[in-house]
């Protein structure tokens, strides 16, 4: 249905959406009020009540505790995102505009890696990382994220490049553009939206990842998800800290999401509905 249908919107719709909105915001409300309570004020029986005064110290403490892992996550996520986006872009270019016999088969082989449960590669993965000497470091995590990011980044870029008409490519080729010329001068400059979509997707994926974080790192290279789980996993007494930590850990992705939300949705769609 068109967006511009000028119809009166029934009040029932408003009631429903508002109710849904309230329910969706409950966890945020709970997290925020709990984070802003003085630990002494936190009590299960008054869990829903507003704090008597905002206790900002929670955020300071949580920040100090999460700082090393936040830093790790930032390095890990940015490096991983940039590298996997670059690989995905050139792969996507090949699969979209330079098909060869069997390229579809190779592409399908690629896609397979997108859906595997990561438990199945866990043990061999850390054996390999250990064998090449990067176990426990950020490099190991980056490598894993880049490799397992190839399928989705390739898919998104391929779908993106499919939208560029073949005729443009033909005429560029007639003008003498070679493989790299075509990619470097024509496709790369056109790829900015593609990079944004892939970047957002990979950023959220890598930032939010937990299983490898908890098994493939040591203290000094922990990502923030593991840091947060540690913060929350101890004794469930000072609940203000895990809640404040949740905000800190969720903040970077939320920020990106709020500013680039449109692309985020596009990224989601590219990963699923696009044929």
């Amino acid at each position, binding site marked *: 249905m068109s967006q511009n249908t000028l119809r009166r919107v029934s009040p029932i719709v408003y009631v429903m959406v508002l109710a849904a909105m309230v329910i969706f915001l409950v966890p945020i409300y709970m997290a925020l009020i709990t984070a802003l309570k003085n630990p002494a004020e936190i009590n299960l029986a008054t869990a829903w009540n507003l704090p008597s005064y905002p206790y900002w110290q929670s955020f300071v403490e949580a920040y100090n505790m999460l700082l090393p892992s936040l830093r790790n996550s930032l390095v890990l996520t940015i490096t991983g995102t940039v590298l996997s986006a670059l690989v995905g872009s050139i792969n996507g270019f090949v699969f979209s505009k330079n098909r060869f016999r*069997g390229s*579809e*088969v190779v592409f*399908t*082989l690629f896609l*397979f890696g997108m859906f595997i449960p990561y438990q199945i590669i866990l043990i061999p993965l*850390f*054996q390999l*990382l*250990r064998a090449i000497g990067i*176990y*426990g470091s950020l490099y190991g995590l980056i490598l894993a994220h880049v490799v397992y990011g190839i399928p989705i980044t390739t898919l998104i870029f391929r779908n993106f490049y499919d939208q560029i008409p073949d005729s443009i490519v033909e005429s560029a080729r007639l003008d003498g553009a070679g493989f790299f010329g075509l990619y470097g001068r024509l496709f790369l400059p056109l790829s900015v939206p593609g990079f944004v979509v892939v970047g957002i997707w990979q950023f959220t994926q890598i930032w939010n990842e937990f299983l490898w974080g*908890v*098994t*493939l790192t*040591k*203290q*000094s290279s922990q990502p923030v998800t593991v840091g947060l789980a*540690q913060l929350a*996993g*101890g*004794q*469930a*007494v000072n609940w203000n800290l895990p809640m404040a930590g949740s905000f800190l850990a969720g903040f970077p992705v939320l920020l990106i999401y709020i500013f680039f939300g449109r692309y985020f949705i596009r990224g989601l769609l590219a990963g699923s509905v696009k044929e």
Partner: protein
Amino acid sequence: MKKGLTLMITLLLLLPMVSVWAGGQQEGTATAEETETVAVPEVKLDYGKPSGDLEIFSWWAGDEAPALNALIDLYNDNYPQVEVINATVTGGSGVNAKAVLKTRMLGGDPPDSFQVHAGQELIGTWVAAERMLDLTPLFESEGWMDVIPEDLINLIGTENGIWSVPVNVHRSNVMWYIPENLEEWGVEAPQSWDEFLEIAEDLEAQGVTPLSLATNWTVNHLWESVALGVLGADKYDGLWNGELSWTSDEAVEVWATLDEVLEYTNDDFSSLSWQQATDLVVGGDAAFNIMGDWAAGYMSTTLNLEPGSDYSWAASPGTDGVFMFLADSFGFPKGVKNPAATLAWLKTCGSKKGQDTFNPLKGSISARTDSDLSKYNDYSQSAAEDFADNRIVGSLAHGVTANEGFMNDFATVMEMFLNNRNPEQAANAAQAIAIQNGIVSR
């Protein structure tokens, strides 16, 4: 197109095969190497002057952190050139820490020293895997052979060597209560489980939870106290040395008693931490709690209660005169990055000063017989006396009597029991896992 698909599917099927073959090859050579390693490597006593980084891996955070920090401070006073990295992984009873430690050891990146429960947890996992150095020379040169009880040395060692330095001794079979509250409710600490069940009726009538319980592992903890109370020390030991069958009437009786006791616990136990279970007792919602004596550390240090007056204790029902112990210890993994600093750390852990710095804060007692008892609170002094003259048995829930495979499977059996409350079936399952994990021979 069909061809492409067929090719793809063939490739998909073929690749795992190839890697299976490659994997098989690799394993073949590995087993060949295996037979060559025989000698047990010992710790050396001259790694040079300690400096650089020392990574200490433990699960002591939160309430238990001050004790570790005090020990680290003492270490730094003696070895200021060493930068100590305090790597703690939180989570009750070290469950999460053990998983992280394993990936690190498998990943060829051992921390310089790590906390491990003395006994089968260390031996069945890390000694069996030949990942530890024999510390006998260190024990001899530091004179620990004379000050650490022989029973304890036997438990942390095998015929091939001594594998870790115990820093503390905890007691597992302790029942905690608030004397004032008991007076008000008109009950006394029970001497046997039968007595407990009588009192429990009375308490429940007054709206008090007779026994507070917490998350999964604390149920195993309760089990071992019930088992000791029902069986007595000899038969309890019999479960571990194969003299008492897990399917015997007595062993079934343990489960049946546990079943009755569980009727008098808080319903929401699975979602509580052990501290919250202690809080229930302190807050007057529950009468008793059975927990190791780290609960004393929690009540004295975190809650600022006075032992003996604000809170009190007794041996768990039917276990008077028996000290069910567990100990934390630190070992020397093979291939550490900083052996000199590790050696210095172990010396600090085992020293009299180190133990008397650490244990008063932790709520535990020293593993040494020559410790300065004046530094300890009333509870610990009484525990130290008991440790000296009681019959000593090992704890299951904290890794003394059984290896990790058994402990993990036992948690499953317990889960099964909590679901169906069938003592016979639990006893049969326990027998099966005891066989499977080599506790009992077939």
